[in-house]
């Protein structure tokens, strides 16, 4: 349920109604900032938000994202190292 898409806030379009232009890969749509308007709207310009049915539902936490990715990439690199070792081991097994 609940298709949510990361998009970047590029411009406040209506301060009073808390509306802003968001960009998703260059596609623009006006969204409501109401759910994330716990700070001055201007501070949201440039931020990435999670958009659902025309509302910015959350500001994406870049730091948390980086941490998650780091863990994931770590697993990937570890596996690559493992496989390289296995490959090396295998080639050692084979007569030259």
């Amino acid at each position, binding site marked *: *349920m*609940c*298709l949510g*898409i990361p*998009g970047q806030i590029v411009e406040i379009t209506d301060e009073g109604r808390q509306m802003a232009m968001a960009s*998703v*890969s*260059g*596609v*623009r*749509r*006006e969204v409501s900032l109401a759910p994330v308007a716990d700070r001055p709207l201007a501070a949201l310009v440039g931020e990435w938000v999670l*958009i*659902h*049915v025309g509302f910015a539902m959350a500001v994406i936490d870049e730091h948390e994202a980086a941490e998650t990715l780091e863990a994931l990439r770590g697993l990937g690199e570890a596996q690559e190292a493992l496989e390289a070792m296995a490959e090396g081991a295998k080639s050692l097994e084979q007569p030259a």
Partner: protein
Amino acid sequence: MASKPCRLRGDRVTLAHGGGGRAMRDLIEEVFTAVFKPDSGEDQARLMTSALQVPGARLAFTTDSYVVTPVEFPGGDIGKIAVCGTVNDLAVGGAVPLWLSASFIIEEGCEIALLRRLVASMAREAEAAGVRIVTGDTKVVEKGSCDTVFITTSGVGVIPPGCDLHAENIRPGDVAIVNGVLGDHGATILAARGDLALSAPLESDCRALGHLMQAVAGACPSLRAARDATRGGLASALNEMAEAAGVSVELDEAALPLRPEVKGMCEILGLDPLYLANEGALVLFVPEEEAEAALAAMRSDTAGQGAAVVGRAVDKGAVPVTMRSAFGGTRIVDMLVGEQLPRIC
């Protein structure tokens, strides 16, 4: 001959312009035949070409109705599509497109200036594609009985002797090639329609593929089959071809040429770009050994700059089309069900 004074009054089409009388004649003469310049005033074109008299040559005949909303959009208009689409339906069958008919169903109230723009656009595209619009018709319907203007074009071309492209020719091992980015038309129209309040720096890919097809056919003696992937997108075209050929097709997701904006539009609306409509997308199959020649020939044409191998035919499997994702998994690429609806979940 001195140009006749303009007898067409008013800015908009009224039912009077469809009644069969003088107002209709004036509309047809001043807006349509003044630009298309048919050979005679008779209601049928009378044509001959030596190409048809070559033994073994066949006549190709196709038709499509065009009903896009809005009728003008970034990168084109309904007139341009109506010419290119029918030229393409001829071209993908191996025919050299020659003659088009153009029939207009016009909503009462349609701006005459709009009609003039559409007609000019059609004339321009026809000239570029090397075809002539030789006969036509206009009807005017009551306000609310059609959506501004619908255009139906039919096309006649000649298939040279020996040319016999069809999907049944495709064999396992053949590679699938597209001529460029996918989904631009569908995404452009979604944005242009305005009701989803989305905007994107996109243009329809609407273009004629006749020259491109001739270039590939020249470069690839074993060209198997070609389709223009219009409604239903690449997915539907490949499903149809695979089913007709009795093969399966494996697509490579990473190889699909897609603009970021098209991906963005699809993410927002929960759509799949494989099903987005195109108006200038060619998909063809060639034996693997002719793939490079095909790519080179395509890239030499403006309409084939983004040519890429996107998959290959394999022995018939459980389903006609599958796709391997960059991520490693494989999924079925089914025919489109109904139409793609924007979704939230």
